[in-house]
């Protein structure tokens, strides 16, 4: 199937990763962060000082005890970092030089069935890789989705290039697909970037429906793809995974061990040499940014600049993130900044003269460029929303907490990340993503 998207935009941010792998010393500490998972209430199994092997359970979901979270490395529990109201933020593991793996029973791949796969994924802690729409939470193992979506490309700013990352992984990727497709009775969709010539590993995949998505960001967002290919109605469930998760699952079933290695890209205008790194889930960014970032105040983000989460300079890469972005912390005031011609001010609108140089890439910073205001401009969100919903009206329905209206306006089809471009472009600087998340959380709470 071919899907053409016209609404959206590619933000011209400087600092995309060169297609090279960099070597860095192993990180000492690794973290599993319960805050990476929406609405999760963790119940700890380990305590500080316990010795663990890769694949040992750290904590499980209090509301769904079969969903477990395991350690990606072996070593001992270094610390459990808590925030307000003793909320668990990070479980830190001090890693050993050589990783000891917990042994899981090896399966005969030709005789795998759905129950077996689900059980193995749950026990090994791989299950959280599978997320669901609506709500963008971890999939419920007791449900069966109507379809599974895998977006083979990421269209967000400076996103890692999967065609590069997956080079030579054809067999493993196909193995993973064969396993994942068994999780649902419906179709598994593998969505490729229509704007470029996709790599053989994706284009040659079997047992899945291959769709080509054309157009600017957010064409790579799974929510956009779901909407155009197999839209969600009230009561429907769709599961989705990232392509690297397919490899992780394939490795697990092939070798019988939890090998949580993945490839991430260090990107952004403040990075000296933006490159790719082979790391293990939950890695600290400290060794990567050592001597590799420019001077000045910086913001480190696990994920991309639109949807990622801010971390410290010794923070850890999030569970679902394959990218670290480093931008300037824009803590400055600008004299009459709203009045100047703005030849160097990047804007999706043409209100600054930067439209004269349309090919330039920009060193964008975290400054808000204005204050929050009431909605004045209309039709702006619609330009960046390729899903057939009325974005502003949906936001307003959430603000008045009218659940029926939210459902009518299609809240089940969206996640906060689908509104990221709207939030970026918003003249009134409304925090749209957190409002959408609030709406989804409210419905989840009311309906459970």
């Amino acid at each position: 199937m071919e899907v053409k998207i016209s609404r959206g935009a590619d933000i011209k941010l400087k600092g995309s990763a060169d297609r090279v792998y960099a070597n860095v010393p192993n990180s000492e500490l690794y973290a599993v962060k319960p805050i990476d998972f929406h609405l999760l209430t963790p119940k700890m199994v380990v305590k500080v000082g316990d010795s663990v092997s890769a694949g040992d359970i750290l904590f499980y979901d209090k509301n769904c005890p079969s969903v477990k979270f395991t350690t990606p490395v072996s070593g001992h529990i270094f610390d459990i970092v808590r925030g307000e109201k003793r909320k668990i933020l990070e479980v830190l593991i001090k890693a050993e030089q050589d990783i000891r793996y917990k042994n899981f029973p090896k399966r005969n791949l030709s005789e795998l069935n759905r129950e077996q796969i689900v059980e193995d994924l749950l026990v090994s802690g791989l299950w959280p890789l599978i997320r669901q729409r609506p709500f963008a939470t971890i999939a419920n193992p007791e449900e069966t989705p109507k379809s599974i979506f895998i977006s083979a490309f990421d269209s967000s700013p400076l996103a890692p290039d999967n065609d590069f990352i997956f080079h030579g992984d054809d067999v493993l990727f196909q193995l993973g697909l064969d396993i994942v497709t068994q999780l649902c009775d419906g179709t598994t969709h593998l969505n490729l970037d229509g704007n470029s010539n996709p790599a053989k590993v994706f284009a040659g995949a079997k047992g899945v429906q291959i769709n080509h998505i054309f157009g600017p960001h957010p064409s790579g967002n799974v929510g956009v793809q779901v909407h155009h290919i197999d839209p969600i109605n009230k009561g429907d469930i769709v599961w989705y995974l990232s392509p690297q998760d397919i490899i992780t699952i394939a490795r697990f079933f092939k070798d019988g061990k939890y090998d949580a290695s993945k490839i991430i890209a260090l990107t952004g205008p403040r990075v000296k040499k933006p490159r790719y790194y082979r790391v293990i889930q939950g890695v600290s960014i400290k060794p990567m940014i050592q001597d590799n970032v420019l001077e000045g105040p910086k913001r480190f983000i696990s994920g991309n600049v639109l949807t990622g989460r801010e971390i410290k300079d010794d923070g850890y890469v999030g569970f679902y993130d394959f990218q670290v972005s480093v931008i300037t912390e824009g803590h400055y005031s600008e004299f009459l900044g709203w009045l100047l011609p703005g030849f160097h001010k990047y804007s999706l609108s043409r209100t600054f003269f930067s439209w004269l140089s349309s090919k330039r890439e920009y060193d964008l910073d975290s400054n808000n460029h204005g204050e929050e205001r009431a909605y004045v401009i209309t039709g702006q969100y619609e330009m960046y929303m390729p899903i057939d919903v009325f974005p502003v009206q949906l936001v307003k329905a959430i603000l008045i907490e009218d659940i029926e209206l939210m459902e009518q306006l299609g809240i089940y089809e969206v996640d906060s990340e689908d509104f990221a471009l709207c939030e970026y472009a918003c003249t009134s600087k409304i925090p749209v993503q957190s409002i959408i998340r609030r709406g989804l959380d409210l419905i989840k709470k009311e309906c459970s």
Partner: protein
Amino acid sequence: MKLIQNILRKIKPTFEEGGRLHTLYPAYDAFETFLFVPNHTSQTGTHIKDSVDLKRTMVIVIIALLPCLLFGMWNIGYQYHSQLINIPGQDVESVYTMWDHFFFGFWKFLPLILVSYIVGLSVEFAFAVNRKHQVNEGYLVTGMLIPLIMPIDVPLWMLALAVVFAVVIGKEVFGGTGMNILNPALTARAFIFFAYPTKMSGDKVWVHSADKIDGVSGETALGQLASLINIDPTNTDVINKISQFSTDGIYSLHNSFLGIIPGSVGETSVIAIMIGAVILLFTGIGSFRIMASMFFGGLFMAYIFNWVAPDTNLFMSLNPIHQLFIGGFLFGMVFMATDPVSATQTNQGKIIYGFLCGVLSILIRVFNPAYPEGVMVAILFMNVMAPLIDHYVIQANINRRLKRLKV
């Protein structure tokens, strides 16, 4: 710059929590953020934000209004000076230069702008201080629009009253910028039009001091047309009036296009309005959907009138393009109907809204000679109808989703 920053830093504590003037904090904040884009960084959601903000948006609209403003000033002088020259054969250009016209108009018009901004912003600041919220930028544009749609001789106290009415009843009672139902600038004009009709209609208000000079024909094109509805085509007086709309008359298509006719300050020149429209459309601030559909709506209605017009009604039989070029139609189309807050908010809704604005403007103008300036009433009426149009557009989206569920 450093100096200003230091002064601001020094006086800030007086306005902050516990300071002597804490109640005036919104006023201080407005002043500070006017001078400096604040150093706030993004706290939730996207880590980068677009450079555009509401201040920038409003400034662009003001820039788009500048051609109308400058031309309007010139035209004030030109119209006045032309009336002074009543010796046949003498040319106004030979006596007064372009700059004479402009500076005459400049000094006449400046008080209107000052009154509009001072009174309007005072009300805005008072509400902001009272409600403890930030001062919104909406009035920057409204404050410029209001004098531009006034006759030059409007008394300043009347203007001030209209501004207060527009800001309080038109905007603040609904919750301020972004919440209003009616376009505040048009509310101000409607206020004067209905409260003091003698200052907003007739043939003595559109040219400066027209009531003091004898034999002045300071009527607007619309006012003149309104008197040409039930005409006797053989009457010499009528023939004289009709000839004013022919190629060398004062209300000719050519003169209307340039804007050298009497009227509200900013509305007369089609060229100046078009420059503004191009700026608004290019920057993406003005809605193309509204402008285009309103233009076609007006054209559509004018052609229908043309088609059914009896011989005795020049207003109906006027060339449709000429019809759109006179009065406030284009100014309303570019700067009033496109006000995003009071217009429809959905893309489909904008097309319907614009089209109806255009149709109604011409309809009211032609059928109700008491309100020759139909565009004002038409847009205000459609402002009220806008939420209804949006409601049906959104309902259609909801129904699409329900239908998908059933299939």
